[in-house]
């Protein structure tokens, strides 16, 4: 594909920042690299978060971010527009992140095909009401750390399904397609992931927990 120049298009009169993703993709396909740079700026925060959640490692996540964007750029000519650009980018990122994770844990096989083990009722131990507004107990940065640590402590087969369904808000079918697993597998893993996270977060968000901050007074 061409790598520079601005193609003649009615869209090109519009500033790049005001174009929707589909128009930016068309501009990129026609050779406008700045249009792809705008797509990167628009989506880099969410893609970095996704990569971090799957790999569980900041350095790997940054590599995955770069590899995913370059991969998308190389193959943008094949992007037919049947799905949204962002969903396509998510698929590329998930694949890159899983490859990275497998490489990192070469001694421990990372598989998304493992059967779900055990009963879900084993996952419900903590029964405690939460604060109505846990976000007032913790700073935004503390909240992010608590939420990120909780996700990253899950097994890859659970956290990957959770981030696609509940953070990226892909549908059950899109998640199944992206991970090449069945819809029932997505559903059972999602339930286990949600229940495990609920259990982990209860330690931080249970009612009265915030009062501990004043225990030293």
């Amino acid at each position, binding site marked *: 594909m061409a*790598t*520079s120049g601005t193609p003649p298009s009615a869209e090109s009169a519009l500033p790049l920042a005001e174009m929707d993703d589909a128009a930016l993709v068309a501009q990129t396909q026609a050779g406008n*690299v700045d249009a*792809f*740079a705008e797509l*990167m*700026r628009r989506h*880099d*925060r*969410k893609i*970095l*978060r996704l990569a971090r959640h799957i790999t569980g490692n900041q350095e790997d996540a*940054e590599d995955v*971010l*770069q590899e995913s*964007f*370059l991969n998308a*750029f*190389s193959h943008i000519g094949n992007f037919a527009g049947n799905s949204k650009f962002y969903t396509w980018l998510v698929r590329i990122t998930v694949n890159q992140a899983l490859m990275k994770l497998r490489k990192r844990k070469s001694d421990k096989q990372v598989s998304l095909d493992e059967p779900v083990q055990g009963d*879900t*009722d084993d996952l*419900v131990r903590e*029964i*405690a*009401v*939460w604060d109505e507004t*846990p*976000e007032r107990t913790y700073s935004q940065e503390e*909240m*992010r750390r608590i*939420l990120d640590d909780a996700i990253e402590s899950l097994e890859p087969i659970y956290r990957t399904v959770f981030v696609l369904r*509940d*953070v990226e*808000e892909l549908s059950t079918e899109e998640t199944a397609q992206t991970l090449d697993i069945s819809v029932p597998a997505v*559903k059972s893993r*999602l*339930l286990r992931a*949600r*229940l495990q*996270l*609920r259990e982990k*977060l*209860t330690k931080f*968000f249970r009612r009265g927990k915030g009062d501990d901050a004043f225990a030293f007074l």
Partner: protein
Amino acid sequence: MLSCKDFLGWLNDYLDETADDQVKAQVKEHITNCPNCWVVYDTTKKTLQVYKGMEPREVPETLRNRLMEALLKKCGKTG
């Protein structure tokens, strides 16, 4: 009435609002009468809310610059 185990089986569909009306009514009845399952429902719902409400971190400027350099290198504009 649903058992607590049945309730867990329907929890995702109830939270995602994909359960049919009959299941919805059964789950609602169960959590109205079972305080422990109400807590599980309420805290799982809040788990999803806190994740959905969390904005991603800003990408450091140094990383953005690295991405742009890599893109331009790929195009053969530099390097």
